[in-house]
């Protein structure tokens, strides 16, 4: 805990220095309606937000939609009734919060979106999902060439539910093909983003196609579910590569330490995303110009790379802000949800 604090202070100094020196009005209260607070990704997003809000002396509150769009609208209404200065929302679904934005507009409450773009939004803080998948795909290609004899038969433990996750899978395949042009996606699964469901569907797919040698998961639960199915089938991990996405919690650190095939993780730094969202909220409150898409950085981590970005003491992880803040995010994504249709 102490360690975390000192890191926070260091990073605070760093970011404050990076900010333009103009005097800013701080919003008093920011409300965040998250998609699914019990998910590790969002917990770490919230951690980043809390850290940054505390630093700036802003009162910060969270409400959880718990994957229920109706509840999300209700929670946002509650916040507006309470009179928050800025609203941050992770849409349960891209289309579902259009009326919410309309309401916020008529209420003069600025809204920052996290994660998913929505028609009529002012600004969104998000990673580039396609790019994230793409660069991990490139790394996977290199690995395949070196260790897997240049073949790449991919089982995608995907989630068609969200455009973001579809983009990751597409990016991964496209990146992979730049190195291994004959790479194919043997199975495109719906793992529900859940470990147990991912395990179940992967087991069937692995049974059908014995030649799979790369497991790609759109989040850590999915890649781990796929890998567990592989292990449960009694297969050796020698000729396998597992690629996860997110770096959401502790699971991937464990896996990279203990599973021989789990070599690549496309880290998305949820803490950083939360941090950036608060900054964006402050800017909106002050009426500053903000880009429509504020990109939060991601990076593929190979092998031991994770230690560069995280400290881990067997029960909690803490982000190394200087390393993460040093990452450069692209101005624009290669592909976005708009390109899917």
């Amino acid at each position, binding site marked *: 805990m102490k360690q975390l604090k000192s890191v926070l202070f260091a990073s605070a100094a760093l970011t404050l220095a990076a900010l333009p020196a103009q005097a800013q009005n701080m919003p008093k209260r920011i409300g965040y309606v998250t998609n699914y*607070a*019990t998910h590790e990704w969002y917990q770490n997003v919230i951690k980043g937000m809390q850290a940054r809000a505390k630093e700036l002396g802003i009162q910060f*509150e*969270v*409400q*959880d939609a*718990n*994957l*229920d*769009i*109706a509840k999300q*609208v*209700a*929670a946002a*209404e*509650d916040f*507006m*009734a*309470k*009179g928050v200065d800025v609203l941050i929302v992770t849409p*349960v*679904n*891209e*289309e*579902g*919060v*259009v*009326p*919410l934005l*309309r*309401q916020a507009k*008529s209420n003069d409450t600025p809204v920052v979106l996290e994660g998913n773009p929505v*028609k009529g939004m002012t600004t969104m803080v998000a990673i580039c999902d396609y790019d994230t998948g793409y660069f991990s795909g490139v790394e996977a290609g290199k690995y395949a060439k070196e260790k897997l004899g240049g073949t790449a038969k991919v089982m995608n433990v995907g989630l*068609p*539910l969200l*455009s973001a996750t579809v983009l990751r899978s597409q990016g991964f395949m496209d990146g992979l093909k730049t190195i291994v042009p004959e790479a194919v996606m043997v199975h495109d699964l*719906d793992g529900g983003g859940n470990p147990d469901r991912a395990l179940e569907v992967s087991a069937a797919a692995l049974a059908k196609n014995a030649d799979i040698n790369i497991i790609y998961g759109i989040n850590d639960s999915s890649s781990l579910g796929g890998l567990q199915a592989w292990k449960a089938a009694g297969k050796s991990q020698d000729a396998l590569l597992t690629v996860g996405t997110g770096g959401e919690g502790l699971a991937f650190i464990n896996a990279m330490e203990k599973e021989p095939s789990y070599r690549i993780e496309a880290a998305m730094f949820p803490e950083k995303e939360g941090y950036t969202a608060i900054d964006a909220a402050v800017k909106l409150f002050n009426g500053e110009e903000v880009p429509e898409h504020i990109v939060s950085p991601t990076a593929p981590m190979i092998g031991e790379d994770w230690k560069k970005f995280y400290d881990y003491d067997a029960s909690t992880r803490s982000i190394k802000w200087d390393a993460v803040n040093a990452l450069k995010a692209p101005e624009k994504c290669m592909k976005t949800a708009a390109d899917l249709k």
Partner: protein
Amino acid sequence: MSHTSMTAAPDKAESSFFARLLKRQEMALFLCLVLVIAFFSFTAENFLSVRNMTNVFGQASLALTAGIGCAIVFISGEVDISIGALLATIALPLILIMNGTESLVLGIGGALLFGLIIGIVNGYLTAYAGINSLIVTLGMMFILRGGVYLYTGQRAIPDDAALDSFIALSDGRLFGVIPYSAIIAFGLLLIFAYMMQHRPFGRQIYAVGGNPEVARLAGYDVRRVKFTCFIISSLLATVAGIILAARVGSAQHTAGLNFEFQVVAATVLGGVSLAGGIGSLTGMALGVLILQFLSNGLRGLGLPTEWQLVITGIIIIAAVAFDEAKRRRAIGG
């Protein structure tokens, strides 16, 4: 039935109106609601503001509308747990038709027609084919939810038409205060509460749920009554689905997940018995409002989801247990 009823003395009609009012289950629920509101008005910030109050009524409109149907089906002695999935399904014809025709009337008409068909299927399989309604509606829940996923490819469908009239369903407020959705829900509640208490058909539903054999001997078409109840339930879930679609401006494939549990919980909390023939729509409405104010107040306190779930779970069990204890005491003399 013959033994339990022999001993209790008949209620005296002369007892005052007020005393009878106090005895009613709805009164206990109402007091409970007042207590919840009182508690949060002291503890949760902004709870009593007009804005927050009207918000809650708007938010309650979904469960309230669908709850009417749920309660009616319960009273008829059956259950319908397909309403959550129907809530999501119904937005498809609505949004698709509106996007295609730019007409709210056609969209709502299409949605109601779809709901009607689902009600007919549920009702037929239960009332005429004789399959347990829990099984029928569980199966229907799978079919509808899977069907929506299949059709949409798990993509929400935006409301491209963005008709003003449709938007008003979500944003519109009477005199700028009361959400239209709440007015619709309470309007439907009034209509159906009147039907259940003062229309022969409503009383037939009570009779069928209370004792189907007696109802049959009294010349009622038990199967048709139950059949109709399922249609009512599906149509009301359709209306709730339309309101939800307006509130979220799209057809959402994941809408209404676990919604059936919320509605069933509120209905039972409101004193409507799963055994049939017992309970009232007023009770159901109070149950919905209690849960809604509770979740709003808990949000206001900044309590995380997990606590909200735990507390709601405890309250449901406690309320039903209390109700049951009261009933047994009444019988035991």
